[in-house]
């Protein structure tokens, strides 16, 4: 009897799956062979460990799910600290950190980033395909029909019904109050922007665009929009690691589409250091899709693919979203956008992660 068979016999014996004859036979073997006996003891212990391990794992992931749910419903104060709590926390944490260190850090960062900015190569864009979506006439027609039906079903939408949308992409929430990120090339020359997902259809406005980084910030300007209480994902400030598994949700069609892949290079098209290269199935309309890692942190914004090579695409690294938000803050009356930095999705199953994320990803329609 080889090891594999023996193991399978032992497991059947422990689980009580043997018929009486087999059992008697096996017990005899156990008595006569101390090695087998020892293996049985060892395996019993191991199976117990596995079992308990499984229970812990289930319990832990259940708690994580519950935390996200409760935070979403606003039944526990969400991960973002508010008011008094935040002041106490920040004060406790940072009173020891000298202001000088902080200002030096700021100056250095600014200097380096401006340097990088000046040096960064401006690449020939011809091989680079931006993945915003040109709606074909047929799609347009079906969409109009669907909209007509929607309008009849649901009279509350404040979106005018007769806008012929010409291009589109994807966008995702970065602040629960109603701010989204998408690519500049998606909303360029837009007269009207409508965002849409299962939750509803809302009018939005561009409040900031950074052409160099290809990041635009949209704000939902619609009386029907109810702000979320919190976002399930966070934005990562770190550069993603090579070979890190990633996934994305976007709107290459009129339906949200899931796709997965991995990070294949730390720089983007022609060595562009702003972005990174990812191996993922991306199509027109995927521009502006969030790229998430295993922990459910957004690590980038999908913005294009190379025309002469299939299968890989490029994404603007998420740390540049923070830069854009900073420059937005410096504007007059610039809103303070607060981006969650920690993901609540860590440790959840992929299907569960996707289920949570999809409510926060929108189709961006532009005319």
């Amino acid at each position: 009897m080889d090891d594999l068979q023996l193991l399978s016999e032992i497991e059947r014996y422990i689980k009580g799956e043997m018929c009486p004859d087999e059992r008697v036979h096996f017990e005899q073997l156990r008595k006569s062979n101390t090695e087998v006996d020892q293996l049985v003891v060892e395996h019993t212990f191991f199976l117990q460990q596995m079992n308990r391990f499984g229970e812990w794992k289930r319990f832990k992931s259940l708690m994580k799910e519950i935390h996200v749910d409760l935070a979403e419903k606003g039944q526990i104060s969400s991960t973002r600290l508010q008011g008094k709590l935040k002041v106490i926390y920040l004060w406790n944490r940072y009173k020891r950190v000298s202001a000088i260190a902080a200002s030096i850090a700021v100056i250095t960062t600014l200097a380096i980033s401006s340097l990088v900015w000046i040096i960064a190569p401006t690449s020939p864009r011809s091989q680079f395909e931006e993945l915003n979506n040109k709606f074909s006439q047929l799609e347009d027609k079906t969409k109009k029909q669907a909209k007509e039906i929607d309008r009849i079903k649901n009279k509350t939408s404040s979106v005018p019904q007769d806008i012929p949308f010409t291009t589109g992409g994807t966008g995702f929430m970065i602040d629960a109050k109603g701010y989204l990120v998408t690519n500049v090339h998606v909303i360029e020359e837009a007269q009207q922007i409508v965002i849409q997902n299962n939750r509803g259809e809302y009018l939005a406005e561009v409040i900031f665009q950074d052409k160099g980084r290809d990041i635009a910030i949209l704000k939902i300007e619609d009386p029907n929009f109810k702000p979320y209480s919190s976002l399930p994902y966070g934005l990562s400030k770190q550069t993603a690691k090579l070979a890190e598994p990633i996934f994305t949700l976007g709107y290459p069609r009129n339906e949200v589409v899931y796709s997965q892949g991995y990070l294949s290079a730390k720089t983007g098209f022609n060595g562009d250091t702003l972005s990174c290269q990812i191996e993922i199935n991306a199509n027109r309309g995927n521009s502006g899709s969030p790229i998430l890692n295993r922990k459910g942190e957004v690590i980038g914004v999908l913005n294009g693919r190379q025309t002469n090579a299939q299968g890989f695409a490029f994404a603007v690294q998420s740390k540049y979203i923070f830069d854009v938000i900073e420059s937005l803050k410096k504007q007059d009356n610039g809103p303070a956008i607060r981006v969650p930095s920690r993901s609540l999705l860590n440790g959840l199953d992929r299907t569960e992660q996707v289920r949570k994320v999809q409510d926060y990803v929108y189709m961006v329609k532009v005319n």
Partner: protein
Amino acid sequence: MNNKHLDVDLLKGLAAGDRKVIERVYKDHFNMIQSLIVNNNGSSDDAQDIFQEAMIVLYEKARAGSFELNCQLKTYLYSVSKRLWLKRLQQSNRLISQEIDPDTTISVEEEIAGFEKRDAEFELMNQAIQRLGEPCGSLLDAYYVKKMNMQDIALQFGYTNADNAKNQKYKCLMRLKKLFFSGYKNGNPNG
């Protein structure tokens, strides 16, 4: 007394892994623990970690059936969280800005020692599974953690039949045992 009955019921639900019960206990106590942590040099992320660890301690206790409820659930969770947090602060050398009121807590040293030992064991198992790689990790996870049956596993992982999947599972299991026990016998949970 009414409170006590309620707590006993909640414990039973916890032991059974009843989602509604966990949600309820979570909702009722998380904010309390969050203020404890945040008032003592922690972030709300720390609060989430600590509270979830305390919940596991409670879960273990409820499951063992040995839980003599000689205090309120609230006091118990508070005590465990406090202890866990103080330990973590000590480890990271962060100073404690204010003394936490000692009267409201009960002694939970034993539980915490037990929790830490088990946590290390599970970490060992977790690492062993990680080191197995794919598809072994997912295969064992499906069978032992998700408790799927062999037919479904064969279907999901693309094996031609349940026997093939079973064979593969045993191969993986043997490797896992080797990894696990080598770590276990070295007494080095990080090995």
